[in-house]
């Protein structure tokens, strides 16, 4: 069994499972659920193999598979992991069984539902593992379609509008990326889509800028960065619970991952030049997302906007050009996946009980469902970055990295932690505090299944908060590599580059003088 077995098996296990589920009878919902759960759990088990055989000391890619696919075009099936993708893959395989658990209330057309969900998992895992630009794009788009159906077919209220918006937004961005990928292919002179080969391809700064922006358009939509974010609240709000969980916990990571994996390493000079712009956007996202979240009336929408703010931290960390920022940003991707995923599960659980998401309809739930209240608070605290829980580690590193790189630029971003406390605690107060109204009395507290789907998340939230080392250890070598790409000028013939000298000067190596 070769070293790369686990990775490839993890990628395709859900797809195989989806095909097999296709042969099950449509009406047997329990059977279908069980099968989907089994497939996702098996995938998780396989991905444990990836984690186990991962060598933390290696900065480059490991467990690499390379198989020719369309040799005429230099397209190959290349997959591999590094410290960045490892955790994204683990997060995906970890979240998926939980989102299957969160889909227990899906009774209608369950077969199609689980098939889409599993196809989606393969798509996302493929994105995280692909080391060939073509393959990457393939998986990237392939992850779009199942989600479209999940939102559109099993969503609420304005699901069709939301699904359309989601699809078109993402597609518009990714098509620009496609053009850029093709441009790279044709103009690199390498005749290949192989990511690692293309890394060194020298492009003039002006060209790089356009290419970077094309990639960036695609990723920024997915992240999402303000002002390209408006698909997100709609999609999150209207999607079924598991859809929101997957969207928030995993799909948004595709964008940030793309920035780290592709946008920066392929076009480092352009990335360096555009750092101020992107940082500004990220900061706007942090503050703006939080402010908009404060006044939301719909609980799910509130959580959705909190994602905008959180992902702002991620992007900020990625682009500040310090190892702390990068590591923190990557860790924050995992953190956000855990805490926001859990929040969406809780909101979904609330919806199942009360059939409303309006904050004003709730109140006093801490009395009627104390365990859920406690869990919600715990997750909210993680989300608002309480030290000792996971969110803090990521946010702190991001902010520290920002400070080391850019000093007082950090202030608006850091103020985001105050705003996060405002919207989360205010929402918590309105939902859980106070005297419960008649409708809010006598609700059922968390069921065993719900505990089973939340407990792993809570455990991990606490674990990362207390002991993030296993994560950071594996992230750091890869993060260091990307930071180096962002900071150093590549060997440009014209000697362009290194424009960000003053900006990145005093954070060298993460420490001041």
């Amino acid at each position: 069994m070769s070293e790369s077995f686990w990775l490839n098996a993890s990628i395709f296990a859900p797809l195989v499972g989806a095909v097999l589920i296709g042969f099950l009878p449509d009406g047997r919902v329990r059977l279908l659920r069980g099968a989907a759960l089994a497939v996702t759990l098996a995938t998780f088990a396989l991905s444990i193999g990836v984690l186990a055989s991962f060598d933390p000391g290696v900065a480059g890619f490991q467990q690499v598979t390379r198989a020719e696919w369309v040799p005429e075009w230099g397209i190959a099936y290349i997959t591999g992991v590094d410290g960045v993708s490892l955790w994204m893959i683990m997060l995906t395989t970890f979240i998926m069984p939980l989102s299957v658990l969160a889909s227990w209330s899906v009774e209608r057309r369950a077969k199609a539902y689980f098939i889409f969900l599993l196809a989606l998992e393969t798509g996302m895992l493929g994105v995280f593992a692909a080391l060939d630009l073509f393959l990457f794009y393939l998986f990237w788009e392939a992850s779009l379609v199942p989600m479209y159906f999940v939102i559109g077919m099993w969503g609420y209220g304005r699901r069709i509008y939301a699904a359309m918006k989601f699809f078109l937004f993402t597609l518009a961005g990714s098509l620009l990326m496609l053009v850029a990928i093709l441009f790279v292919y044709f103009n690199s002179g390498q005749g290949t889509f192989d990511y690692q080969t293309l890394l060194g391809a020298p492009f003039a700064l002006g060209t790089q800028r356009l290419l970077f922006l094309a990639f960036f358009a695609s990723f920024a939509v997915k992240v999402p960065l303000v002002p390209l974010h408006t698909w997100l609240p709609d999609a999150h709000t209207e999607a079924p619970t598991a859809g929101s969980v997957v969207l928030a916990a995993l799909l948004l990571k595709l964008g940030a991952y793309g920035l780290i994996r592709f946008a920066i390493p392929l076009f480092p000079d352009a990335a360096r030049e555009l750092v101020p712009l992107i940082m500004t956007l990220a900061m706007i996202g942090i503050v703006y997302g939080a402010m908009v979240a404060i006044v939301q009336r719909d609980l799910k929408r509130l959580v959705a906007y909190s994602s905008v703010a959180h992902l702002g931290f991620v992007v900020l960390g990625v682009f500040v050009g310090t190892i702390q920022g990068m590591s923190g940003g990557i860790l924050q991707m995992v953190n956000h996946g855990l805490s926001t995923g859990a929040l969406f599960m809780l909101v979904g659980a609330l919806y199942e009980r009360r059939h409303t998401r309006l904050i004003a309809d709730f109140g006093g739930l801490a009395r009627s469902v104390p365990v859920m209240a406690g869990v919600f608070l715990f997750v909210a605290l993680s989300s608002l970055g309480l030290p000792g829980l996971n969110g803090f580690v990521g946010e702190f590193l991001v902010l520290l990295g920002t400070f080391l790189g850019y000093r007082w630029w950090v202030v608006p971003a850091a103020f985001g932690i105050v705003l996060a406390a405002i919207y989360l605690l205010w929402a918590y107060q309105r939902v859980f505090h106070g005297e419960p109204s008649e409708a809010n009395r006598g609700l059922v507290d968390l069921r065993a299944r719900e505990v089973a789907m939340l407990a792993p998340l809570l455990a991990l939230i606490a674990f990362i908060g207390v002991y993030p080392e296993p994560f950071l250890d594996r992230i750091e070598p890869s993060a260091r590599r990307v930071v180096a790409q962002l900071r150093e000028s590549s060997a440009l013939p014209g000697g362009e580059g290194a424009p960000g000298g003053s900006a990145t000067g005093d954070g060298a190596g993460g420490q001041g003088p």
Partner: protein
Amino acid sequence: MTLSADAGAHATLAPYIVALPLAGAVVLLFFGKRIGRAAGVVASGAIAGSFALGVASYLGLLAAGEEEREASVRVFDWIQAGDFRVAADLLVDQLSIVMVLVVTGVGTLIHVYSIGYMAGDPRYPRFFAYLNLFAAAMLLLVLADNVLLLYVGWEGVGLCSYLLIGFWFERRAAANAAKKAFLVNRIGDFAFMLGIFVLVSEAGTLVVGDVNRAAADFDPGIATIGALLLFAGATGKSAQIPLYVWLPDAMEGPTPVSALIHAATMVTAGVYMVVRMGPVFEASGGAALEVVAWIGALTALWAALMACFEYDIKRVLAYSTISQLGYMFLAAGVRAYSASMFHLVTHAFFKALMFLGAGAVMHALAGQVDMRKMGGLRKVMPITGVTFMLGWLAISGIVPFSGFFSKDAILASAWQEGRYALWALGVGTALLTAFYMSRLYLRVFEGPVVVPGHAREHGGVHVHDAPPTMAAALVPLALLSVVGGVLNLPGALTLEHFLEPVVGHSEVPGGLTPWLLAGAALLVAAAGIALAAALYLAPAGEARRARIHGRARVPIDAARNKFFVDAIYGRAFVLPGKALSSFAANTVDARLIDGIVNGTGRLVAGASEGLRRWQTGYVRSYGATFLLGVVVIFSILFVRGVVM
């Protein structure tokens, strides 16, 4: 758990000091329902165990040589990213052990008190879980060897404060107060975090000792910014101007919480932190300390003014706490760190005592807090009355109670440093302190017996003294309030001498001056008590009060309305913030950005609708379009190919 080889033996216990209450909290959170009534005992046992371990550590520390008293223990590596490394290290030295003893000691008493006080509450186990969690966080805060770990404890206690203020979350006021406390603290923490960044970038480390050693080389400007940011954090946690507003509201929490968190321990975290990071503050070349001292002095006076006109006994105590914390900052600001710590300790004793006494009164009067509806209670609840009286005398600064010594130390230090203005502010505050505390004490416990109507009806005869568990907490605290002063009596065992290795030496006045200063303080205290007696105890007090009120209606009303600070904050920050958020959500997001998005869609659809009219259905107009295309193409090529 690995212990570093060079750790002093006495530090080995430190992790367990934190872990014990933490374990108690976890056990109670998960199994609270099953444990039921025994929760109070479990929790008290956990914190008492911590206290015992603290004492053991203290003894171990005393046994160690002068040079080896500072010891740290590594629990595990926490965060590493690049050169930035933070470990979960705990530091045991003279300063932290003092705090440990105060926290666990007072904490244990309050736990015990709560067993009686909270009896009958449906969420009884949860209360103790939170209380234990708080103790753990607070101990982590004081024992942290690096600033980030301190920050963990710092926010941890904030969280517990939130949970406990909002313990009776069904009450809107409690829920609001909890949220307010957390948010105001978050603002402080935001500054604190920025301060941490400054420390990391300047010192390259967050280990307290290393930072303090490196501080000497800091650029004064940077050091000032860093120190002020840290201090901004402290103003949040320790309720100083401008972030004190949450503390009076925090009285919505159960009274033991007010005693433990909002009087004795948590709110002093800011003082502790300033003392801890003293060298950083000093590195700014005086500017930062100047700010600390002035903020402290002004807060002391400001809060005391408000305390003078408040009728809610818990709120009076809350303002008093703010005021006393101001004293501590005043001391720290003049580098009298040990005086600051000294006052911190004595204040913990007498303020906790008074809160618990107030709690006993409320307990007896079915939750009544308005002092106008009380009177002469010493006669019906003698233990509470007497112990409260001791606390009153202590805070008022009457010889030989503990407050006299600690307050005097602060004032003397200010004088010694030549900061006469600060000294004057301190003395003025002392007058007010004596006055409002006497007002409180005299109204509630002296004079004719007054019991609020509903308390009489509900339990008329049941206006009783505190139950034994509550009394068990009151009496030791009362004793400590009385004798706490000995801690700093001149001699080898003084607190000042003990702390000197950590906080450095501070000059005390010599010769006749200290006696004169002490006399002045005593005189002022007596004046305050006399004034209160004249207004509240004397038969003519009622008339005098009316006269004064008539003459100074405006300032008094202002003071009763907390000088409108809450309202001003509301107008200046909360409302505009909400408006801005609404603007962002409803206008920018929904109209502008989504408007552009949907507008693009509409534009395409509109273009589609418009363009389809072009497809008229008349074949001749199709032909016209065709011909148009031909002519355009022909003309272009004609110009390109033929003419040119």
